[in-house]
């Protein structure tokens, strides 16, 4: 009998040991806050616009509280913060609204993004589809949003991500004789640059190594799991580009006039009065596309998706602007979340008018904006291509570099890019 009761006491003490360890679960879930909270995750460079939108949202809806978390700039802190965020998202208590910046192909500027590959994140079910709210919203009918950009944020017909700003490269020439370039491919532009005496065209073509990831736009379709990256075309262009650059380098003495450089990569917002015509730089297949810079999305685990969508749209519709103009105040949020190129014509117009660009130039910018056929998200492969080609082109000026060296480099980069695209698509 004695051993029985000894056993019982032992069981009881072990049991309370385990309860002690696992107990102490403070039931903080009990006092459900009365206020609805909206958690937002954003990049530090959107700070001013996001904070102003949050203040506006709290004014409009008093019992709504907007909590903003900014991804740190310091690389190490950002790494651990993103690791933690990813676990929280998958565990189901991630943030409600995402306002993120896409991967930039220039590694000196780029930071690790929260969504490594936006296309894959859309497949993972972490984001909520926004069709329901977009039908009710009048903005999509009478707003000037460029509908082609929406396809970048769609997967299986559902809209998961909304691009908020984009970026594309242009050729800005002082003389108006570039109409004949409008429907040509990048390869033909290179031939054109060899004969033509348009200094700006030569500079742009010499600077192609700065954005080598953009030689073929949108090289993979993640939904149909196909890769359009044409290795052969890429290799031939690589070799002809380097031969052209080597010949130009030998004749290049010093800039003819102030502002001329050896290689140039322009964007529309560098426009000034001397520009007469603007032409979008095509890729090897002759397509003209922009790439998404900032984009917004709503988390699947968000309880109040309606107000999350409203908050997201504050950066597109001019609700804040009209409200603030009634109160006589000025606002930062003018149809765009950051200083990249806005995704709607009304915002482009208002921004460049404010800077004081003449109407005629603004029309040229809008003209180039209408020429854009679509947008896509940058991935790590474009980043790899841009860096490796940029590095390779630095060696272009020492004399003993010859054709075989370029061929070897070209096939190595193209092979790796093709391999990585296939991995990304089918993973």
């Amino acid at each position: 009998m004695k051993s029985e009761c000894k056993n019982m006491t032992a069981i009881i003490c072990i049991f309370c040991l385990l309860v002690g360890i696992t107990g102490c679960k403070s039931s903080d879930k009990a006092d459900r806050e009365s206020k609805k909270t909206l958690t937002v995750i954003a990049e530090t460079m959107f700070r001013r616009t996001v904070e102003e939108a949050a203040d506006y949202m709290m004014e409009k809806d008093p019992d709504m509280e907007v909590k903003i978390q900014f991804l740190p700039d310091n690389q190490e802190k950002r790494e651990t913060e993103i690791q933690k965020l990813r676990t929280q998202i998958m565990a189901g208590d991630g943030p409600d609204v995402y306002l993120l910046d896409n991967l930039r192909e220039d590694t000196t500027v780029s930071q690790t993004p929260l969504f490594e590959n936006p296309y894959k994140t859309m497949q993972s079910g972490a984001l909520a589809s926004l069709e329901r709210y977009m039908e009710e919203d009048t903005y999509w009918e009478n707003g000037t949003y460029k509908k082609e950009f929406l396809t970048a944020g769609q997967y299986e017909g559902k809209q998961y991500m909304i691009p908020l700003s984009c970026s594309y490269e242009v050729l800005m020439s002082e003389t108006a004789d570039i109409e004949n370039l409008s429907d040509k491919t990048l390869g033909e532009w290179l031939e054109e640059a060899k004969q033509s005496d348009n200094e700006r065209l030569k500079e742009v073509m010499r600077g192609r190594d700065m954005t080598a990831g953009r030689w073929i736009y949108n090289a993979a379709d993640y939904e149909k799991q196909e890769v359009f990256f044409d290795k052969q075309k890429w290799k031939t262009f690589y070799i002809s580009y380097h031969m052209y650059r080597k010949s130009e380098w030998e004749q290049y003495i010093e800039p003819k006039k102030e502002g001329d450089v050896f290689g140039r990569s322009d964007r529309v917002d560098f426009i000034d009065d001397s520009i007469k015509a603007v032409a979008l730089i095509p890729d090897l297949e002759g397509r003209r596309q922009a790439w998404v810079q900032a984009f917004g999305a709503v988390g699947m685990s968000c309880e109040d998706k309606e107000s999350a969508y409203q908050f997201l749209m504050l950066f597109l519709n001019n609700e804040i602007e009209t409200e603030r103009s009634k109160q006589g105040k000025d606002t930062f949020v003018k149809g765009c979340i950051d200083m990249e190129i806005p995704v709607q014509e009304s915002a482009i117009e208002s921004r460049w008018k404010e800077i004081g660009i003449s109407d005629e130039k603004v029309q040229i910018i809008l003209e180039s904006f209408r020429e854009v056929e679509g947008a896509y998200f940058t991935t790590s492969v474009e980043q790899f291509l841009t860096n490796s080609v940029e590095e390779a082109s630095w060696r272009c000026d020492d004399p003993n570099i010859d054709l075989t060296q370029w061929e070897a480099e070209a096939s190595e980069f193209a092979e790796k890019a093709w391999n990585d695209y296939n991995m990304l698509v089918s993973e």
Partner: protein
Amino acid sequence: MAKKRVWTAGCAVLILLLTCTVLSMRVEKMMRIEVETVTAVKEEQDSELAKIPISCYNEDKSSFFYAHERKGLFGAELVAVKKESYPIDEEEEMALIVYTEGFDSTGMKPLKIVSQSSWPLEEGDLLVLKEDREVDVVKQIQILACFTAILLPGILLLVRCVKRFSDLRDGNWKAGIESFIIIGIWLGSIFSLTGKLDIPREYLPPEYILDIGFYINEIQEFKLLEYYGRELLICIVCVGFIWFGSILAVFFCCTYRKSRKSK
């Protein structure tokens, strides 16, 4: 036999690491660079410009440092952060900058811009606000002297306590507790003594406290020997006396124990 030696070696390393931890806390506190900070002051009410002293900028006038508060291991600490900014123009010795540059990224909190620092700053250096206090060199020398004074007897005591520590392994608790107490006293005394030390940062080397070369030419330069020669002499004598006394004490109790054991 080997177990005993390993156990004593382990305790010695343990005590060494504990002393290093305590010392490093004090060294970090002492090596904080003293700075004077200033905030961007608006000229007139509505103008967009503000004035800060020229001395805030580095040589090529491309950036200035500001003291940023962050949560450290032991409470809040100030750290130097570099900020890019270019002065619009310079009057006699004040620089004109855009008002918003004097504020942090949220635009509400004014930055504590470093105008004067005892040593050239680098990113991530720990800072402390300079309060002008009268430094009593004599007192510092005395504290330093008694710090060195307790070094030798302390080490001898520790050696004895490490031996006693090994008895703990054989199970007699009394020796264990005693050696714990000795270690506690040793660490406490180091901590409090170095705490009282209050040497202004200019007299300490730029970033490497054991930089003997710096101390030597500092003594020659300020000719400290002439002014404080007398106090230095007294302290050296006391330290010598204490060290000699402790060696004697150890020698005496060794012979006493040997005689007790042989009886």
